[in-house]
């Protein structure tokens, strides 16, 4: 686990498969450890939907630039991102 965390913190991107290969273990072992590290708050999942804009954030200007009418609109910009964000971008985590 410490070895995994060390790899996660060294500034290089890795796939789960690469982590498994480097630590000489299985993908499912890495997956369960990532789940644990996420639960204890050491790593966190990266949101891939509309820049993480849920529309509830204060100070959010929304996407008024796209509606063109100057109205504040916190819905995802159709012109920027597919509806409901990127679907097939995999799962990304980062060290907190």
């Amino acid at each position: 686990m410490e070895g995994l965390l060390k790899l996660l913190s060294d500034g290089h991107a890795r796939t789960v498969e690469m982590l498994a290969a480097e630590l000489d273990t299985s993908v499912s072992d890495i997956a369960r450890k990532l789940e644990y590290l996420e639960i204890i708050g050491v790593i966190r999942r990266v949101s891939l939907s509309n820049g993480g804009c849920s529309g509830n954030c204060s100070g959010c200007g929304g996407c008024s630039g796209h509606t063109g009418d100057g109205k504040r609109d916190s819905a995802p910009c159709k012109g920027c991102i597919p509806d409901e964000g990127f679907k097939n971008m995999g799962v990304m985590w980062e060290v907190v």
Partner: protein
Amino acid sequence: MSTGVTVALLGQPNSGKSTLFNALTGLRQHVGNWPGKTVEKKEGSFTHKGKEYKVADLPGSYSLSANSDEEVITRDYIASGEADVACILADSSQLQRSLFMLADYAGIDVPCFLLLNMSDVAAEQGKKINAGAIEEKLGIPVIPFSATDKKSYDVFYEALGTVIKNKGMLNVEKLNTQYESIIGYREIYELIPENVIPGYSAMWIAVKALENDKVVMAKLRAALDDQTYSRIEDAKKNAQGAVATGGCKFAWIDDILEKAVDAGDKKISLSFLDKIYTSRIWGKPAVILTVLLGLIASFIPAIPLMIVGSLILAVKAPVMGVLSSIGCPEILTLIIGDVVIQSFSYIFKMLGFVFGVTLVFGLLEEVGVMARISYVFDNTMGKLGLQGKSVMPFLVSFGCTMGGAAGARVIDNWGQKVLTIALAWAVPCGAAWATVPMLSTIFFGPGAVLVIVAVLLTMLLHMWITAKIFGAKLVKKEDRYGMIMELPPYHKPKWGALFRYVFGRTKETFIRVTKVIMLVCGVFWLLSYSPSGENGGILYTIGVAIDPVTRLFGMPWQLFLSYVASAVGKEGAIGVISALYNGGSYSAGFMDAMNGAATAGNLNELLLANVSKPEALAFIFAITFNMPCVVALAATYQETHSAKWTSIIVLYYTVVSLVLAFLAYHIGLLIW
């Protein structure tokens, strides 16, 4: 009737607890809330062989840490003695993961047994589980089970009877040995008297103390004298924490499963494509090639809309001819021809590229290639001093810089956020992808591909240099982290959703672009219009005055004004070109063109006649790397909350775009 035995069902979410609970109790169940909590409390009862049993379906949770109310309720309920037996459920199809609950339970002094639920699913996956071997190591009954299969309930009742009779406790010896390897564990363990918190062993409490479990620490503070409690706090300071205890639990699980589970593991190996994409040597070239091929491929779906654009241009001369012949005022004829028809011709040609690029890159995202691209770029992100998630604002910026700037709000570190936005500006946005290929095609024909390649390479270099310039001030080295990515499997695209997105985007772009181009084209055309037909108009006077300076950057005044307009929106540049090269200053040439003169059959040729290739190249680089648009500027201010940094970024991009124009022009002079 005796109150009977109480069985607590314990397991992670989706371990099948509720199915078991419903099957055992049928209609004999009631649902309420745990006292003082909003957590649902499900209790019921059943009778087996004349004996009454109470069942508590405890809230599903990952573990028994104090991360949530559910977890605290679960462990306190069991340890309180209300439950006589804990039935722990694990998902047989993923025992490595789901036995974590058992590992976290170890040390709670209540008899238990383990149900390897969904054993049918595990069997279908080719997993062979030797429950006997696991039972031997754990010292409690371990039974393969399927909560949905009524037949397997006999073994459940049998195991329940055995545990009640033998009061079988989980063998935690080997787990304790694992914990001994943790720095600080032994010291804390020895400070904890047995039964200091009823129901929990000293081992369990010591581990929770290492994990900094606030509920346990509060109970210890209440139960221990001040001196002992401070010694525990002191020991914790130099001790390993939850990462180490979790590691021990996983190691213990692996030990239990060793030789007991034949996972029928098909060795997971990377697909051929993934081997290339994740290769340290070939990853980057592969991604760059993919992006280039994607851009080239996007010309194909662009063709129909480009033909529409050409057809619109083809009707311009006849329409203007008709308007003239019916005595329409000249200015109106020119506005309809030069502003409206000309603009729509450009708009449709641009839309062709927007449609093509969105379709091809949407498709790459759908099939899973985009994830690989962002993975490969992540290493570059690290080198630029950014977090992995900066990839997303950059990707979004290919569509719209404003989206990219807004997307940067997921980056918590302010410096990295500002740097991400500053770099996102260098990514050519959708409007640039619409104007640049179109202009490149006009001036360079098939060589447009090379121009686009040069633009992309310049973008990378620009981002690298910008990161070096701004990075030192904005990002500290210790703020930089790696990223972990689970690459999605490749799969067939969902065409319906993809086309909805592509058409939606094209439509949005059409509306926005039409407004900008018509407005900008109209205003600039009017400013450059000269009723006499001779060179004149306000813009002409200003233009001629600034021309010596603008030519330093390789741009005649008309192109320079288009460049200035591109700061409002890249589409605006097209509007200005359209107006200026059609307007007063070139009205004579234009009239020839309109009258069907062979030398200047359309505006493209008019442009070619008036703008040299080096000038065109300078202009393309200038507008591509100019500030994206005023909306992106507003979004940048909104996200950075810094007028200073927003101004610095604007100034920087203006200077850099002019320097790039200068360089492109001089390189162009060497070539042509």
